């Protein structure tokens, strides 16, 4: 039997994405609309490290130990890796409601409110989470009731799960899926800037013993990372506090779980102890992205009167990775633990 296959154009999910994000590399990279400051961040890091490796490392490797440039290089690669990971990954964008779902929610709200006056009542839903009453707000853009801790980013025009903040320096929102990369980025950047700062000072001091302080200062490049050290170290400290108390920047700024509001206003998401909170934030399971490039929004193939659907029911093609020795090692070590 001859089968005539006719393909209709395939559309990937990111091509029909309603928010303001930009996608690159066939949907594998997801960033905010304005990325200028991200390129500035990259340039600042590259220039500072470049200057350090060019002017200071040779001297320090000779005078002290060659391990210094090695540690510097490792830190630098870690910083760049985590920065790119934070900037390019999906922060945990919630897909907008389908028209059917939005209509269903509207119906439920009308039933709950009874009358339909001129002014629609504020759309909130109250849930009790671990004994604490939390208000879920309705998002008029995404047409969903936002899950707890989610917030709508006005710059990216998306609701993001566990929304922390929109960071222009990384050119993306920081949310559920990329918070740990962001934290690792600022932590490693703090170590890198302190490392560079300390060794540049060391270089100046060692040099000044030979040729005098002012000459040494003239020869050495201006300590570019002096001011950034304090702001980055401060930011790392702030986020360490947030992680240990299982709060987001958004919640901290609003004072959602501040004891100043009332004695009973405790954080319902906290696990109770600092260690578990840290482990959950940094080593907890990482949910997959809903905007994965490989999801096909619709594939239709017609063949001689047989209608075949490419994805029925629609399934997420989770990338297959080789079930190699490493994965087996992981499972073995976990069973031992």
């Amino acid at each position, binding site marked *: 039997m001859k089968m005539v296959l006719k393909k209709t154009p395939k559309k990937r999910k990111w091509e029909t994405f309603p928010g303001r994000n930009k996608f690159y590399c066939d949907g594998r990279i997801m960033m905010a609309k304005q990325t200028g400051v991200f390129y500035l961040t990259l340039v600042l890091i590259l220039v500072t490290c470049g200057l350090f490796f060019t002017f200071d490392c040779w001297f320090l490797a000779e005078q002290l130990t060659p391990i210094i440039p090695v540690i510097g290089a490792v830190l630098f*690669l*870690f910083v760049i*890796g*985590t920065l790119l*990971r934070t900037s390019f990954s999906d922060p945990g*964008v*919630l*897909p907008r409601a*389908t028209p*059917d*779902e939005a209509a*269903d*929610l509207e119906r439920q709200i009308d039933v709950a409110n009874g009358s339909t006056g001129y002014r629609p009542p504020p759309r909130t839903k109250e*849930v*009790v*989470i*671990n004994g604490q009453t*939390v208000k*879920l707000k309705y998002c008029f853009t995404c047409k969903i*009731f936002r*899950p*707890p801790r989610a917030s709508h980013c006005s710059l990216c025009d998306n609701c993001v*799960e*566990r929304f922390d903040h929109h960071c222009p320096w990384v050119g993306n929102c920081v949310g559920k899926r990329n918070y740990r990369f962001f934290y*690792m980025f600022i932590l490693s950047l703090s170590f890198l800037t302190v490392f560079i700062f300390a060794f540049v000072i060391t270089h100046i001091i060692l040099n000044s013993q030979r040729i005098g302080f002012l000459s040494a200062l003239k020869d050495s490049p201006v300590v570019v990372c002096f001011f950034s050290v304090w702001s980055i170290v401060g930011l790392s400290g702030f986020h360490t506090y947030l992680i240990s108390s299982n709060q987001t920047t958004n919640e901290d700024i609003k004072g959602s779980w501040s004891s100043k509001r009332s004695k009973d206003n405790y954080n319902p*998401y906290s696990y109770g102890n600092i260690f578990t909170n840290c*482990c*959950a934030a*940094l*080593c*907890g*399971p*990482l*949910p*997959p992205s*809903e905007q994965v490039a490989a999801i096909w929004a619709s*594939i239709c*193939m017609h*063949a001689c009167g047989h*209608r*075949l*659907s*490419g*994805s*029925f*029911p*629609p*399934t*997420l093609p*989770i*990338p297959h*990775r080789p*079930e*190699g020795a*490493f*994965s087996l090692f*992981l*499972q073995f070590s*976990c069973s031992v*633990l």
Partner: protein
Amino acid sequence: MCRGHVLICWPFFFLQTHSLQDLRHQAAVAAKVFIQRDYTNGTLCQFQTKFPSELETKIDKQQFEETMRTLNNLYAEAEKLGSQSYVEGCLACLTAYTIFLCIETHYEKVLKKIAKYIQEQNDKVYAPRGLLLTDPLERGLRVIEITIFEDRSLTQ
């Protein structure tokens, strides 16, 4: 590779799910029911197990609750904070998260299991009753969409 192509190669499965596909394309959608998330235990992925009134004439309450309970247990297993997730997290951090390119995380493995379970439930329980469960992953883990097809297509 098109799923339909696979179905042609496996006539047994093709016969089983051909009726399902006919249902989807030839039957009209009567209604859609949305099972919302249950946030009483925090932000963990759990769905409400309350039996919706629209399904009263379509399916057993026990059957529906059994499906929901199994799904909730599977999601709890995916998000479990145990030794495996910690080891994965630590190793990922040490390798600057490049390890995610090589291995499948525990979460992804369980999501595959969930997708298989939903497919199986659709084939065995829901399709014969003119219903279709949509994997909540398609909706960002916000709702489980249950499509109710019109009865007359089943009698064709």
